């Protein structure tokens, strides 16, 4: 079993003691927070997007991976033309999303009806107006949160579904790029990788299918690897190319003959896939969950800690001073919550700066694109087939947007960290911690949880991931952007539990933005195909409005994204401050109560509290240990990929 599943189980187990702490200490709000975090981990989705030309065995491959011989139609005269998603569900449920973007309805269908919507043969030119096929299946392969998204072929990307495809790729955790053993990687496929995939997601696994039909797949694997070296700019060992046979895997389902399984090489693929997922998204999901547990336990612990401190040998003066400090903190936190707290303005100013920066970068980039369009229009070859020009510009815009997205994510994360600093939020935490530790140390077991470096890394990873558009997003949100928000209830199984993090807006927004661009592009491509005269003037008449539309659409979207970002960052910070204040209040309360206790009561309480603190220590230590393990998973030796291949 891969690490992700193992660790996930362990982390989920840690929720139990934490929740029982919250229960015992009668903190329903914190208990709810834990339950929410637990749910997010349970529901946590790992998005795997499958790309590749149809006819190269993609549908068979999916069937084989899922152990479902008859899920996707695979006849040789069939082309599948619809984006399909598959996630885990207790009961099999298949729905198709029909209608225009912005006005879609979901229709429940049976398995046999899949080909009616999904194949070109039965749904010519998509007269059914299908946007998406959504499959829920009680499939063990999906139980750990895998979401597969099957996108139509790269060659026939001039379908209307490109909008949806563009929305998924930036949010993919891993991309499986499927080709078969008879077709070397084409220039078109390499171009697609370069322009549409690599800027957004570098977690790629190349799958070469149909190896049952040849004995020399190494030749084509090496040939592909050579072509990918220049594109991906990595060491050859870090380009995973895994050969498989869907045929043999499916045969294994009925034959149960291990030779079929081994020859299929699917186990190598699954290992490779999980390794990659564990290292990236898996790690983030786990660390975020761990972080939450740690956070809540911290909050639960502090009042208890202070109570214990009170029962130790402290002079009245010392206790007075402690109480004063806590009151000061309380006041500070109260002020932080006020509307005129300085961090509010800082947040606003910070985001204004980011907005200016981002829009500036976008403008510069777009000016370049305008200049580039001139170059394209002066190329005789391109003028001959002008719809290519729009395709090229689309790719250019795509690159620009992904650049902008990166900047936005990085700067937001930095701003957030700075705000935590400058608002004194960070300080409050550590100070409280130091205060409550007091002079007396609980020698052997005392535990500087808050300042542990491992945990800091954990929080950093978790926080940065929140702003990294890709991982912060909930797929439901981005789908809303791309399809116009009409999917409603369908989005639920995409969302990794409730509660989008601030960065989710970035991911969702960008996804929607790219979807809009694709819509504009498709419209223009058609227009360009229709023009009678292939002159620069005629082409320019189409390109000019295209650029204008794209520009304004992008600008609008970017502004909206940043506005939502501000709102969500503010909410998030407020929520943190609230929690801190709550903890502070309770800590103060605890101190006051403890001071008022009689000596005998204090003695009794002291013993009880010690036991509780020891339990806290144990859990906190487990958290740190686990976090360390998970963080270390990040380092994978370079020999890994070459070792895995048979």
């Amino acid at each position: 079993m891969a690490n992700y599943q193992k660790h996930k189980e362990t982390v989920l187990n840690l929720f139990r003691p934490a929740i029982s702490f919250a229960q015992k200490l009668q903190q329903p709000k914190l208990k709810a927070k834990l339950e929410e975090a637990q749910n997010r981990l349970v529901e946590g989705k790992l998005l795997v997007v499958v790309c590749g030309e149809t006819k190269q065995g993609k549908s068979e491959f999916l069937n084989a991976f899922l152990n479902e011989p008859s899920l996707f139609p695979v006849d040789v005269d069939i082309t599948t033309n619809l984006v399909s998603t598959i996630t885990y569900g207790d009961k099999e449920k298949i729905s198709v999303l029909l209608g225009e973007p912005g006005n879609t309805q979901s229709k429940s269908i049976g398995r046999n009806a899949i080909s009616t919507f999904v194949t070109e043969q039965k749904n010519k030119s998509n007269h059914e107006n299908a946007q998406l096929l959504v499959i829920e299946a009680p499939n063990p392969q999906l139980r750990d949160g895998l979401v597969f998204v099957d996108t139509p072929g790269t060659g026939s990307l001039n379908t209307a579904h490109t909008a949806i495809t563009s929305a998924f790729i930036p949010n993919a955790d891993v991309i499986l790029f499927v080709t078969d053993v008879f077709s070397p990687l084409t220039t078109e496929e390499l171009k697609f990788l370069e322009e549409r995939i690599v800027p957004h997601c570098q977690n790629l696994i190349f799958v070469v299918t149909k190896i049952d039909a040849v004995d020399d797949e190494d030749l084509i694997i090496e040939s592909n690897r050579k072509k990918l070296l220049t594109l991906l700019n990595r060491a050859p060992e870090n380009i995973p190319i895994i050969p498989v046979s869907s045929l043999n895997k499916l045969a294994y389902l009925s034959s149960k003959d291990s030779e079929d399984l081994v020859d299929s090489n699917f186990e190598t693929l699954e290992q490779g896939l999980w390794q990659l997922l564990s290292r990236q998204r898996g790690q983030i999901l786990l660390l975020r969950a761990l972080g939450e547990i740690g956070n809540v336990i911290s909050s639960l612990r502090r009042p208890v800690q202070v109570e214990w401190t009170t029962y130790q040998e402290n002079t009245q003066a010392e206790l007075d001073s402690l109480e004063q400090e806590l009151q000061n903190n309380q006041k500070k936190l109260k002020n932080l919550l006020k509307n005129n707290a300085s961090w509010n303005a800082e947040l606003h100013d910070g985001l204004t700066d980011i907005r200016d920066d981002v829009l500036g970068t976008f403008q510069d980039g777009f000016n370049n694109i305008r200049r580039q369009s001139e170059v394209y229009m002066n190329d005789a070859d391109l003028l001959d087939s002008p719809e290519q020009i729009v395709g090229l510009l689309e790719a250019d815009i795509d690159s620009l947007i992904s650049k902008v997205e990166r900047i936005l994510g990085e700067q937001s994360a930095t701003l957030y960290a700075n705000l935590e600093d400058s608002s004194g939020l960070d300080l409050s935490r550590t100070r409280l911690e130091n205060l409550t530790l007091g002079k007396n140390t609980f020698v052997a077991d005392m535990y500087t949880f808050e300042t542990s470096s491992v945990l800091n890394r954990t929080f950093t990873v978790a926080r940065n991931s929140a702003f990294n558009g890709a991982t912060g997003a909930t797929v439901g949100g981005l789908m809303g952007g791309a399809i116009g928000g009409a999917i409603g209830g369908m989005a639920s199984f995409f969302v990794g539990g409730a509660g989008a993090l601030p960065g989710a807006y970035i991911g969702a927004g960008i996804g929607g933005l790219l979807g809009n661009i694709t819509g504009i592009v498709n419209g223009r491509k058609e227009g360009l195909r229709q023009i009678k005269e292939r002159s620069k003037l005629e082409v320019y008449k189409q390109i000019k409005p295209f650029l204008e539309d794209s520009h304004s659409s992008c600008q609008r979207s970017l502004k909206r994204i940043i506005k939502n970002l501000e709102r969500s960052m503010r909410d998030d910070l407020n929520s943190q401050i609230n929690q801190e204040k709550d903890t502070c209040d309770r800590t103060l309360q605890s101190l006051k109560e403890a001071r008022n206790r009689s000596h005998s009561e204090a003695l009794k309480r002291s013993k009880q509290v010690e036991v509780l603190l020891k339990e806290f220590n144990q859990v906190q230590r487990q958290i740190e240990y686990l976090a360390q393990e998970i963080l270390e998973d990040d380092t994978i030796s370079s020999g890994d990929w070459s070792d895995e291949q048979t």
Partner: protein
Amino acid sequence: MNKPSNLEQKVKDLFQESLELTDGQPELSDFHTILKQSYDRLCQPMRVAIVGVIKAGKSTLINALIGEEIVATGRVEATFNINWLKYATKPHLKVHFKTGKPPETKSFEELAALTLRPEEHQEYLLSIKYIEVFYPHDLLKIFNIIDTPGLKSSYKIDSETTKDFLRLHGKEITQITQREASSADAVLYLFSRPPSAADQKVVEQFQGPMLGDTTPLNAIGVLTQVDRYWATQTPDPIALGNKLSHKWAEHPAIRQRLYTIYPVCGLLAAGAQTLTEKQFMALNELAKLPEERLEKLLRNVKRFGREHNDIIVPGVERTELVNQLGQYGVWLACKYIRAGCHEQKLLVQDLIKHTGIEQLRHLLLSHFGHRAFLIKLGTALKKISVAYFQSRHLLEDKPLAILENIAGKFDTLKSKEHAFQELDVLKNYYSQKLNFDDQEQQQLLEVTGEYGTSLGERLGLNARATVVEMQPLARERVNYWKRRANNRMVSDRATLAAAKVLARSYERIWYRVQKAQEYLSI
């Protein structure tokens, strides 16, 4: 092999007669030269050009058509030159250069060595214009094969060699391919994947300037690598191939450009024809294995080649065998052997029947071969006519008499040969210059011999139609088309002219049917 038709024999006799008459007549020496050139061209083997994307199985198909392994096949693509396969008594190569350097003779091995390491010999390889490949196979006396490097759009996609080469030479490659395709007597367009009707790429391939002036007059589509369907789709790949090809051929963009699409199990076809005795023995051993076991082994090529205690044939040989015949081929061969086929020759015949190669060869030679002759003849007649008009003013007495005599005979040939007029109609039809409805179009294709030249086939029945069946139909058609040819209100001149030709065609058929009837009643 095809037998020369009446027309072909008549023409050859006429040419020979004319050449004799003009030989040794100094005033007629120019005319003689033109006669000779035309005759030579007519007698040349038919030119078949093969075009396709890389990895479409071109080399395998060529080997299958010829029946011997002439061209090397490989998993990664090799050359990008033109290869022209011709007949000679000893195998050798002649390399022609772009630079005007005189052609070099090389052996097969020498050239193979060069193409194995293209980077080292890049300069040499890039300077090659085309390569004449001479091979002592009788079929090459009947047709030559022109193996083209392909089309720029598809070629750009997966060459092993540097991108730069393609950027610099891609256009040139396309031009070369286009030129060869347009001067060939038949062009085979190879596809290794059946595209769906909506597959933009395929449709685009058939539109625009990319393929020059190919029409169904001389272009056939070939669906290759059909053997591959056996593993996942069907126990009868050719049947599936046929079904797919039919569906596919209905796409309007394809119908305009290709006569039809033929499926071929290239690997099996080539492999069966070049099967060695040792391989045949190995097949016999394998046929002894239980069916289920053999099928399971064949499910994976590497598995098939592994050592197993109970299989006498060594793994290495088995791998060679499956690379020779394909998974389908091995399975089919064993099936036949199990059913009682014990002779290698017979086995090969049985196997070939499932590959579609014979149908393709037959189509090339008879249908397109004859058409090619007509087309070449048409060109020759034009040249002769021009030469006649140019020469007659300069001559008198005996030479003039000879010229008039010969020119007259050729002229008669042209006007009497209804086949030329039918050919023109067909040309116009494929160029979409005619306005016939669907049914009329169908009859046009039938009567001009697109579906077969027997009387029955020309009437839209099959080749074994009886006189009783044909008579009423022939009469009906004559009446229809005579009326059609006179219906000036409805159609344009070209269409009316075509209708007139078709009416005459039906008249001739009617006449022959009558004759057959009379013969039978005697």
